[in-house]
């Protein structure tokens, strides 16, 4: 057992920090909560790509760096710490590239991976449908074979990144007669096609990061199929483990944590800094405790992945835990700000650029995205604890 990172890893962390601090100093962007999913900044993504920080864990033969998942965790941890606008490449880097490496044909690898590495694939995740949420295998969007093509018909919803996407990763039904989870396939294709239309969904923060995406007779080449036909559901279960396992499930609103600590030290109430109020101290310390426990969960997952194992129940556990922390942080931040906590980012006198307000509302979705906490607890109970299904 050794909880230390290697010297190279410490150096790498410093390199990432220096880069991000340099960006902030140049005024290129401001740290913000949810920037990994809402901060669409193609220029930033280009610069990250130039640092070779996309595809960090992919094998070198595919243009990756062949580095460990712990290294990638260090990178994403710092991106989230600084609230960097990494949304353009986050999904492609996190799970799509890996899926192509794992399931793609040689031709697909040759075509798709360089594009992801260059930070040019802004991917939308086309999974949920109006009647297929937690029960994803009930999806109805169809992919019907037609000569050398598939024809896509149907509707996706809650499609993250849908408003900015130029590519979509789509799960669709390819065999309507098979048992529901045995007739699903995965596709990856450009979205500038006739018949694709996107309707943004405004969330309770007033922001737009998920969308409805409609497919009407959309013709895509057969080469868009990723992996085995009708095995898509099994492939995606594995991908979801990666989708759930990252540091964004603990640090999506980390800039708020640093901001509220700073605020408590600098803001006086009745002549004393808030940070000297025993209740405020206890709240902040408890958040720190919960955060550090979550960090251990996250590093454990990276190590599981470095052993070559998919993070299965571990990612369910850490996602439930981490998102609960993020929600606790958002709520506690408003409580510490007191009456000021209710002010919206646009309001006169709003402290901390309205981060607490935004994050409080935004964090309600954290325990729903990528598997609701309830579904994940079921997974944990069945797979780790081996409790019976019936």
């Amino acid at each position: 057992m050794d909880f230390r990172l290697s010297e190279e890893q410490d150096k790498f962390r410093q390199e990432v920090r220096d880069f991000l601090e340099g960006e902030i100093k140049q005024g290129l962007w401001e740290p913000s909560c949810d920037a990994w999913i809402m901060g669409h900044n193609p220029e930033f993504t280009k610069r990250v790509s130039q640092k070779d920080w996309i595809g960090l864990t992919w094998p070198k033969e595919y243009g990756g760096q062949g580095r460990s998942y712990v290294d990638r965790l260090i990178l994403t941890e710092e991106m989230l710490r600084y609230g960097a606008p990494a949304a353009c490449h986050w999904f492609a880097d996190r799970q799509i590239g890996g899926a192509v490496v794992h399931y793609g044909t040689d031709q697909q690898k040759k075509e798709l991976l360089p594009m992801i590495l260059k930070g040019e694939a802004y991917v939308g995740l086309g999974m949920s449908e109006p009647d297929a949420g937690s029960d994803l295998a009930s999806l109805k969007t169809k992919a019907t074979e037609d000569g050398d093509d598939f024809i896509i018909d149907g509707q996706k919803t809650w499609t993250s990144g849908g408003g900015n996407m130029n590519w979509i990763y789509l799960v669709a039904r390819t065999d309507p007669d098979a048992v529901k989870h045995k007739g699903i396939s995965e596709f990856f294709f450009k979205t500038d096609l006739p018949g694709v239309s996107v309707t943004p969904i405004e969330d309770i923060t007033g922001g737009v990061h998920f969308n409805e995406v409609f497919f009407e007779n959309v013709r895509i080449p057969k080469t868009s199929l990723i992996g085995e036909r009708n095995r898509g559901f099994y492939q995606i279960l594995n991908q979801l483990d990666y989708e759930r396992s990252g540091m964004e499930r603990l640090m999506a609103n980390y800039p708020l944590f640093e901001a509220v600590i700073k605020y408590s030290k600098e803001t006086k109430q009745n002549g004393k800094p808030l940070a000297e109020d025993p209740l405020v101290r206890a709240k902040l310390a408890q958040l720190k405790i919960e955060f550090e426990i979550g960090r251990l969960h996250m590093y454990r997952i990276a190590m599981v992945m470095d052993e070559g194992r998919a993070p299965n129940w571990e990612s369910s556990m850490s996602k439930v835990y981490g998102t609960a922390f993020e929600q606790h942080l958002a709520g506690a931040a408003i409580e510490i700000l007191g009456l000021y906590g209710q002010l919206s980012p646009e309001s006169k006198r709003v402290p901390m650029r309205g981060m607490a307000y935004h994050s409080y509302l935004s964090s309600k979705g954290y325990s729903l995205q990528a598997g609701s906490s309830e579904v994940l607890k079921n997974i944990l109970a069945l797979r780790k604890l081996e409790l019976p299904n019936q």
Partner: protein
Amino acid sequence: MNLALSEEQEMLKTMARDVLADKLPKTAVKEIEESEEGYSAELWKEMAGLGWMGLAFPEKYGGSGMSFLDLAMLLEEMGRACLPGPYFSTVVLSGFTILDIGTDGQKDEYLPKISSGEAIFTLALTEPSASYKESGIGTKAAAEGDSYVISGTKLFVPDANVADYILVAARTDKGITLFIVDAKSPGISTTVLKTIANDKLCEVVFDKVKVPKDNVLGEPDQGWPEVEKIIQRAAVGKCCEMTGCIQQALDMTVEYAKDRKQYGRPIGSFQVIQHYCADMATDVDGTRLSAYQAAWMVSVGLPCTQEVAIAKAWAGEACQRVMALAHQIHGAIGVTIDHDLQYYTRRAKAAEVSFGDASFHREVVAREMGL
């Protein structure tokens, strides 16, 4: 970074679990708890024979030269088995302190006695103030010729009823001084308190107890930072025990949920029970990860004030959540005196308040955060 146990640690853990499962069924725990001594001399001898007392002490003191992290594995299994007795007091509270700050002569004299199982030690730190702060110490030690004379009342002293030696923290001229006191010295009277964990916490009254100056442990008047280290080490040790305690409670609960049928199906197939179990497992893993991290840091000698405080604050509250759910899932059978669950319930509560509860450690974390 590597979170895996070494092969040796795996072996030690498995061996400890097997030995304790064999030698210490709950009937034996009950018998020991109800005995006057509060420990089994026979088991004590066997543990010494297995090398458990001296596990983390150097070979020249009769030990095995292993680390505090290795010891953590043992403590976890002791927590799982609800081992009653003075192991923690002797090894974690006292042995390490002597190893840390004792003179060569003191180490030569006392550590082999600990390794061999010949002597039982404890630490008399807390007082009626029930505080882990320096200001909580009122017991005085006054210099008189070649001796000090100790007077005062220590409270919540574990295993003092059977201890051969007591490490005492007392107030001297300019600070706190630690002493190694022969428990048979005239002027010491011990009363066993009745506790929730059924362990032997004692009131120990020192009435002009004479202690030779040679028995000062560490520097006179400079003892408080050492006491803080003792509390820190003990808090980590407790976290390891607590990990074993709630892991076992979880294991028992999952087994029960698989077996117990209602409405014609195992209750573990109901999602509410599954979610409870998932919550318990998450708390157990968080407790273990943070306990191991703190134990590893103590082991390699890194500064770990914050990590220890995080681990103990977390463990204290996580244990309460886990035990609450364990009871809820066990239903009425779990609140019967003949069911094993109560051993864990009682110990988890005592462990929560020992060596700093969550509030105590949150304040440490707050200071470390610069608040």
